[in-house]
């Protein structure tokens, strides 16, 4: 320690320097690749930049006013909300149903987990192609072939404005419910067996145990899944782009989600400013959803 005489540093100070040394590259990364782009997106949302022209004109709130009168925006927002409102509860219900049953199995649990989880890790583009093929019109599509074999009328599926959103939902729920199942399983494993033993001594039925013990104790898990799921479903994009024939969320915008409209506006019409405005809107929706979650989980703790 003698050579340290000149600049006496305590271990704590030394460690503080090490900590900053470890963090300097990551901090630069987060500033340059996360925070600066976020602010830049906000800035772009107040400009009419169209990528072709050199200058970015600051136009104030004009894009935001345009947003409110944009019928395609309203339509795609409606479609997105429809995916959240119908897709999420169905995939959560199925995820819970599966987790609930897998949880008290002695044998085969791992096999079932693998089967249900597989779609979640599958490439959404690959999955979208497979489902797109299943939904093709006769004589190509598998579902229509099956319908024909059963002497039932064939269906237009992806070519119908009423059936196509449903086809997208089926694909999405299929891909997503494995995630809900795994999280529900973790939640169920966290409930102490003693609660159930006590309930059984009191003569509670399975249904009563589910209502009085399982579901109330799963509340944090359910809140987590509702919020993360809402965010995931708000961002639906890949499956719709790859399932619609022109990659445009058709027919007639019936399946087009918000993110696909954002993509089209930026990278097909090159209206960067207006597209950025829509990403800000998406960000605000996600922020509100997240704040609600923090509120609920906080009141849970106290």
């Amino acid at each position: 320690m003698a050579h340290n005489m000149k600049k006496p540093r305590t271990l704590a100070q030394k460690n503080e320097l090490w900590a900053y040394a470890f963090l300097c590259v990551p901090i630069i990364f987060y500033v340059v690749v996360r925070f600066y782009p976020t602010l830049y997106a906000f800035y772009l949302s107040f400009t009419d930049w169209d990528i072709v022209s050199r200058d970015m004109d600051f136009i104030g709130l004009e894009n935001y006013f345009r947003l409110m009168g944009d019928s395609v925006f309203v339509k795609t927002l409606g479609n997105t909300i429809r995916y959240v409102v119908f897709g999420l509860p169905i995939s959560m219900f199925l995820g819970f149903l599966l987790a609930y049953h897998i949880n008290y199995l002695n044998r085969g649990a791992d096999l079932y987990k693998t089967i249900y989880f597989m779609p979640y890790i599958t490439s959404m583009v690959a999955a979208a192609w497979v489902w797109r093929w299943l939904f093709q019109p006769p004589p190509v599509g598998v579902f229509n072939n099956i319908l024909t074999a059963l002497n039932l009328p064939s269906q237009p599926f992806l070519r119908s404005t009423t059936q196509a959103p449903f086809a997208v939902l089926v694909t999405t729920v299929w891909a997503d419910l494995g995630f809900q199942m795994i999280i529900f399983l973790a939640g169920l494993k966290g409930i102490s067996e003693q609660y159930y033993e006590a309930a059984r001594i009191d003569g509670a039925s399975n249904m009563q145990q589910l209502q009085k013990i399982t579901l109330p104790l799963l509340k944090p898990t359910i809140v987590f899944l509702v919020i993360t799921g809402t965010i995931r479903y708000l961002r639906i994009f890949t499956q719709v782009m790859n399932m619609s024939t022109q990659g445009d969320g058709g027919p007639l915008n019936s399946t087009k989600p918000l993110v696909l409209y954002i993509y089209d506006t930026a990278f097909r019409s090159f209206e960067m400013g207006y597209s950025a405005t829509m990403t800000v809107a998406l960000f605000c929706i996600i922020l509100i959803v997240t704040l609600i979650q923090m509120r609920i989980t906080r009141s849970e703790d106290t």
Partner: protein
Amino acid sequence: MKIRKLHILTHILLITFGLAMLFPFFWMIATSFKQGRAVFNLSLIPTAPTTANYVRLMTSGHFSRWFINSLICGILVTFSVLFFDSLVGYTFAKYKFRGKKLIFLLILSTMMIPTEMLVIPWYIMANNLKWANTYWGIIFPGLMSGFGTFLMRQFFDGLPNDLIDAGRIDGLNEFSIWVRVCMPLVKAALSALAIFSFVGNWNAFLWPLIISDEITKYTLPVGLSFFNGEFQTEWEMVMAGASVATIPVLVLYLIFQKQIIKGIALTGVKG
């Protein structure tokens, strides 16, 4: 007796549902081994199975190139994420320093920013720096992640501080303590994070779609999404392509099942 009956019913429910979940995979794989009119046949087992689709896929068009691009990007991102996320996670778990809470909060808050909002600025940045159509351009946004940092901090938090002190007494510097003492003890977490980042990157679509416009620079998902152009919707080729895109992650999943489930479950429990 009653319990046994219930279990049989449970298995029936789970098997029925499982078959429905696997149905698209069955068709995908079965069709990828069929050719000609057999493609539209409803039989699950090809009568004359052939690997010709796979051979054609890998030798004609750009498929093998896309596969290699995805592999390279996936591996580079995974190594970067493993290194930086565990370093940052470790720092937040084991060091005291000024601004710690604020910096951690800021890093976590990046999880809330949707990629969709960042892609337009990234696109402008990458174009200005001539990063379009390069591996670096594809991977730079994903080199670190708030999620991975959070995950690694949870695991490093569980290590006893005595270990680090013992390392210090042995004369190791702080970097060596992290690499040689602590990293080997969080292998399970590292493999979970490795799988997450590889699978996530392998399946990433939006950003690679935006940043690459040369067909030879596509990643696998981007290439697949333009299959219409490459193979004129020959469904047996599309299914072979989808299978090749799916099989690597499935194999990874089967090998690291336990870690993946543990890692995902941990994120859920902690919120």
